[in-house]
């Protein structure tokens, strides 16, 4: 636990002194600000469209934050410091996952100012706002997990980034393609889709099943990353 904490602290600090993290955060806030501006212009007093779009922006933003997590360590061979120390692969992966997830969550927390502003101009139903935001944070966790897994596969940060976007886009396209496949395949796609629970959450329906689904998805990606690291560590 202490080792996970050490890695978590180091990674989180790296984000706060990394220019890329600030550029990525700036880009995300700019894009989400544009959407929020549109809500104001159309006098819409609900956040669902903004959260829906933010989910799409995160699709491209998060892999930029995850791409360096393991790939950069492998490229610069700093991974050998971790591999030759008595620290488990689980501690390495979990520490890095939590650090990136914390940074993304903090970035998303800045957007809480939007519903606050909306609430100043009229009656804002806070139920869908809260569940929509929770849904966004959970979706971001899945993206972080996928990006981390991509980073565990290669030793090049750019390839890790592109791979991360590719994997997430693939899941996104699977969601869109469910109408074109047969009924049985559609059920499977529906079942594993990370976007399906979003619809409920954006409408204010927060249930434990969806939360469990997202947490399970994150655990799965963390587990896959641990397995990849094991394959690299001692071969």
């Amino acid at each position: 636990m202490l080792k996970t904490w050490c890695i978590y602290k180091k990674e989180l600090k790296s984000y706060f002194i990394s220019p890329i993290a600030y550029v990525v955060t700036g880009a995300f806030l700019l894009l989400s600000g544009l959407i929020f501006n549109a809500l104001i212009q159309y006098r819409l007093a609900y956040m669902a469209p903004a959260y829906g779009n933010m989910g799409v922006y995160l699709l491209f933003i998060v892999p930029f934050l995850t791409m360096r997590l393991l790939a950069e360590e492998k490229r610069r061979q700093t991974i050998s410091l971790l591999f030759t120390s008595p620290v488990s692969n689980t501690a390495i992966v979990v520490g890095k996952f939590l650090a990136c997830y914390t940074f993304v969550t903090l970035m998303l927390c800045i957007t809480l100012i939007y519903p606050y502003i909306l609430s100043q101009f009229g009656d804002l139903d806070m139920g869908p706002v809260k569940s929509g935001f929770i849904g966004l944070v959970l979706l971001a966790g899945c993206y972080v997990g996928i990006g981390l897994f991509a980073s565990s596969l290669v030793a090049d940060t750019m390839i890790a980034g592109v791979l991360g976007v590719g994997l997430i886009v693939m899941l996104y396209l699977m969601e869109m393609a469910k109408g074109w496949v047969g009924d049985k395949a559609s059920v499977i796609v529906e079942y594993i889709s990370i976007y399906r629970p979003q619809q409920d959450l954006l409408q204010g329906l927060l249930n434990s099943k969806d939360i469990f689904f997202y947490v399970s998805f994150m655990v799965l990606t963390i587990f896959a990353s641990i397995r990849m690291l094991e394959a690299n560590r001692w071969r």
Partner: protein
Amino acid sequence: MTTGNSVSGDFLVASGLTKVFDGGIRAVDGVDLQIRSGEIFALLGPNGAGKTTTIRMIVTLARPTSGTVILEDIDVVKVPDSARERIGYVGQEVALDRSLTAREHLELQAGLYHIPPSMQAERIGEILDLVELTDRADDQVRTFSGGMKKRLDLACGLIHRPRLLVLDEPTLGLDIQTRTRIWQFIRTLREQGTTILLTTHYLEEADQLCDRIAIMDHGKIQTCGTPAELKTSVGGDVVTLTLVEDDARPELEQLAADLRGLPFIRDVVATDRMLIYIEPGQDSVPKVFKSLTDRGVHVDRFTYSPPSLDDVFLKFTGHSLRD
């Protein structure tokens, strides 16, 4: 899991260590090593000799295809985590995060080796002192010179006071001043009781720094001993000759075979130059020249010296490390 080894008194024993990579490349081929406690031991060899792969297996970065590594009483292959507690590893490339400070690096390493927080500040202070980075402790690594980075890298490998410090080409690419400084740190660590295993392809480094040297080539240990023992094994002094190109001159191999039969010559190695190992004594050198002149061979340049590690390398591998 322990093996109850250490009966021999050796600190680290590698037996039949072999690494075969995908595609059948045999990088390390049945290496046997015995390293004694408190010594500086070098693996000397050219690039591609298998030195790095050997130490990667010892520090648990690579799993041996076959063979064992016993560190004190621990089987490194079977119980890698216990071995990692006792080993400090400093790789060929500097493994530092440019955005972190020297102190932050050491704090991270201290945490990974579960040094209690109450002891960390004192330990970090000691290590920074040792590598002479105390006044730069809170500067980011991006502002460090190459030598400072290497020293910090070394400090990271030392934070948990390892029983065995493994250094892969510790002075590769460093200027002579920094190299001398690193050597001094290594000697200080040895005096403090740390056993040191390093790889190098610098003859001078192996000769001046190390207590014992294993010469490695094509994945195998060719010979092993103290620098003095290895040089003695060459036998006699060395006359190195560059011969005048001449149509009448016999072929080098033929000439070498011819000279080997003479009583004052112990051995002859012919490459682009000719190395003649002679009986020590004042009259051997004139006899060599007379023998050559008698065979119609003219000498362009020559050197006469006691044997060097390069001569040892040449004798045991058939080629020079400088090639």
